[in-house]
C-alpha cells in the first residue's frame, strides 16, 4: 500500500483540498487513505462515487476532498440525506459517507438506525476520534471509560455505547445493517480489504474506525501531544476479533457480514413503485 502522495491522490482527490486542514499528527488521513485505496482497488472511477460527509473533524476534513460530486450534511443528518439521494441516484452509483463518532452514534444515531432498517446501499465510515475533538475535546458515546476529557475532568464515568460489554455495532445489527466491521487506523491493508467488502455490499455497510487525536484527546488523557503515545495507546487496546485481551476496547475485523442478504432500499422501493404504477396494486 502506498502511503505517500501518489497516483491515488492525483486521480481521486482535489489538490485544492489535500492536504486537509487537520492538525499535525491527526490519524484521520490514515482512515481517509484506507477508503480511497479501497475504491482504487475495486477499480471504481471518480464518477462512480458520490461522497458525503458531515460535521466535526472527520466531516470537515474530508469534505470536497473527493474529486467527484459530494456534500457535507448537517450534523447527524447525512444518513437521511443519503437515503433521499439513494432513491434519486441510479443504483450503480456508490454513496460513501465519512463521518465522525458524534455524528453517527450521537446526534445521528436514529437516522443511522433507519438507514440500516431500510438497508439503503450506503457505505458509512465512522472515523472515531474518541469524542468531540473539533469543539476542543469532550467525551462522546464511544469514548473509553475513565478517559479524561474537557467535559469529563474526573474521568468519563457515564455508561456509553462501548462500555459494560455493549457494542454500538449490536444496535445496527439489530436494526438491519448488512455489513458491520471495525478497524483502527493503523490496520492499513487489512482495513482496505474490509472497506472493499463494505462498498461491495448492496445495502447498509458501516465500518467503525477509531483513529488517534494527538491534539485534544491525547493531550488530556495521556498528558502528551506526542503522536507516538496515542498511536501506541490505541494499538494496545485493539486486537483482532477472537484474539481479544483483557484491555481490548476495539475488537477488529469483520464483525458481521450478511452482504446481499436483504432487499436493498433503492431496488426494493423502485421495483415496488414500478409494480404499483403498472398494475395499480402490490
Amino acid at each position: 500500500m502506498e502511503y505517500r502522495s501518489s497516483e491515488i491522490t492525483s486521480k481521486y482527490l482535489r489538490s485544492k483540498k489535500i492536504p486537509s486542514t487537520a492538525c499535525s499528527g491527526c490519524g484521520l488521513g490514515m482512515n481517509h487513505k484506507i477508503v480511497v485505496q479501497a475504491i482504487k482497488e475495486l477499480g471504481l472511477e471518480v464518477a462512480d462515487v458520490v461522497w458525503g460527509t458531515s460535521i466535526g473533524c472527520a466531516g470537515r476534513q474530508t469534505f470536497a476532498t473527493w474529486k467527484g460530486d459530494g456534500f457535507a450534511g448537517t450534523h447527524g443528518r447525512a444518513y437521511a440525506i443519503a437515503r433521499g439521494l439513494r432513491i434519486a441516484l441510479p443504483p450503480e452509483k456508490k454513496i460513501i459517507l465519512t463521518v465522525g463518532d458524534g455524528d453517527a452514534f450521537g446526534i445521528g444515531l436514529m437516522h443511522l438506525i433507519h438507514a440500516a432498517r431500510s438497508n439503503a446501499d450506503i457505505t458509512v465510515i465512522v472515523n472515531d476520534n474518541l469524542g468531540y475533538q473539533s469543539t476542543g475535546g469532550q467525551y462522546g458515546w464511544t469514548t473509553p471509560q475513565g478517559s479524561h476529557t474537557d467535559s469529563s475532568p474526573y474521568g468519563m464515568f457515564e455508561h456509553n455505547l462501548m462500555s459494560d460489554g455493549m457494542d454500538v455495532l449490536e444496535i445496527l445489527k439489530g436494526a438491519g445493517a448488512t455489513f458491520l466491521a471495525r478497524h483502527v487506523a493503523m490496520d492499513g491493508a487489512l482495513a482496505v480489504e474490509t472497506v472493499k467488502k463494505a462498498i461491495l455490499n448492496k445495502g447498509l455497510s458501516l465500518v467503525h474506525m477509531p483513529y488517534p487525536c494527538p491534539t485534544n484527546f491525547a493531550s488530556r488523557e495521556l498528558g502528551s501531544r506526542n503522536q507516538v503515545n496515542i498511536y501506541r495507546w490505541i494499538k494496545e487496546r485493539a486486537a483482532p476479533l477472537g484474539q481479544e485481551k483483557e484491555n481490548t476496547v476495539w475488537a477488529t475485523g469483520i464483525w458481521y457480514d450478511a452482504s446481499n442478504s436483504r432487499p436493498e432500499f433503492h431496488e426494493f422501493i423502485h421495483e415496488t413503485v414500478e409494480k404499483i404504477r403498472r398494475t395499480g396494486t402490490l
Partner: protein
Amino acid sequence: MKRFLETGNFAITEGAILAGCRFFSGYPITPATELAEAMSLRLPQVGGFYLQAEDECAACHMCVGASLGGMKAMTATSGPGYILYADPLGWALGCETPLVVLNSGRVGPVSGITGAPGQGEFYLMRYPTQGGNYETICLAPNTAQECMAMTVEAFYLSERFRMPVLVLADQLITDGFEDISVPENEDEMKEMEFRVWPRKVCQGPEFYPFTDDLDIPPVVLGHNTGGVCSDWTPTVEGYDIEEVEAHHKHAYRLIYKVRNHRDLFNHHYQKKFMDDDPDLIVVSYGSPSRVVNTAVIKAREQGLKVGSLRLINLWPFPDEHFTQRAKYLSVELNWDGELVREVQRAVPKDSEVHFLGTCGDLPTTPDLIETFEKLLKNEPISRKGWVLEEW
C-alpha cells in the same frame, strides 16, 4: 378539465404532480397527515416515491437529498413538525437546493389544539432557521383550488430561485372539501396560469456564483460535474471557507436573488374595494380572509367605506400595497398579533393600525362588521382586539 369535490390536500397533491414532483417524505401530523396519505396513494401511480420518515427532521432532509439527486421534492407538516425543519431548511437555503415545503397551521404553542386552524408561524416562515443572511419566499392560499395553483407556483419559483419555497396554509384550507378543477393537459394548465420550470443541472465549475441572477441551475449530484455543497459558507466552487468577505458575498446572493426579483411573485395578492380610497383597509391572509371578504361586501352594502387587502405573497413582505393613508385592521388567527407588526411597519407614518385576533376558530361576519363600525366611529374595539399602540 376534471372536477372534484375534494380537500385542499388533494389539490396540493395534484398540483405537486403537475409541477413534476416525484418525491415526498413526511411524518404524520394533524392536519398535514391527509396530504401525506394522498401522496402515498398518488405518487406511485405516476412513478413517484412516498417515504415516511422517522421524524420531520429526517423527512425534510430526505427531500433535500432527493432534490440534490435531481428529483423535484416536497414535504408537508404543521407547526410542531415545522420547527424540526429548521435544520434541513437552513441547509437547503445555504446549498440553494430547490424544495417545496407546506405548513398547515394549527393552534399553538407546542401541540396546542391539534385540529383547529391557527396562524402562529407568520414569522417562522420568514425566519425558518438560524443565522439570518437569507430571504424566504412564502405563498399563502385561501382555497383548495388556490392550494393547487400555489403548489405549482412554489415548484416553479423554487427551481428558478434554486431555494426552498414555503406554502403557508391552515387546517381549514387543507382539510376543507371544495370544488376543485384539475387541468388534464398543458393547454389547460396554461389556461389556469400554471407555470412549470424543468429541473436543470449546474455544470460548474462555478457552483455558487456571487450574483443575484436567477436561473442558475442548482447543484445536482451524480452527474460527475464535480459539484459539491455543504453547510459551511461556500467559495464559488462550493468549498468551505472561513472568511468574512466570502460570507458577505454568499449572503448577498441569498438575500438579493429574492429581493431583486420580487416581480416574479409579488402579483399574488387580492384587493377588493380598494380603488375609492377606503377609510378602513382590512388586511388578512389564509382562511380568515374568506370571512373578511364576505364581511367587506356586506359592510359596503351597509355604506361602510371598507376595503380588503388579501395577501398571498407573504414574504418578502409586500410593502408596496401599504401606501394608502387609512385606518388598517389586521385580522389573524392568533391572539398575539403577528401580521399586524409588519402592517404597522409598512403603512404610512401616521396611519392607525388595529388588530383583531381569534384562534382555533374564524371570526364571524357580524363580529367583523361590528369591529369595522367601531373603528370608523373611532370607538375602541375592546373585546377581541386592541390598538397596537396600547401594547
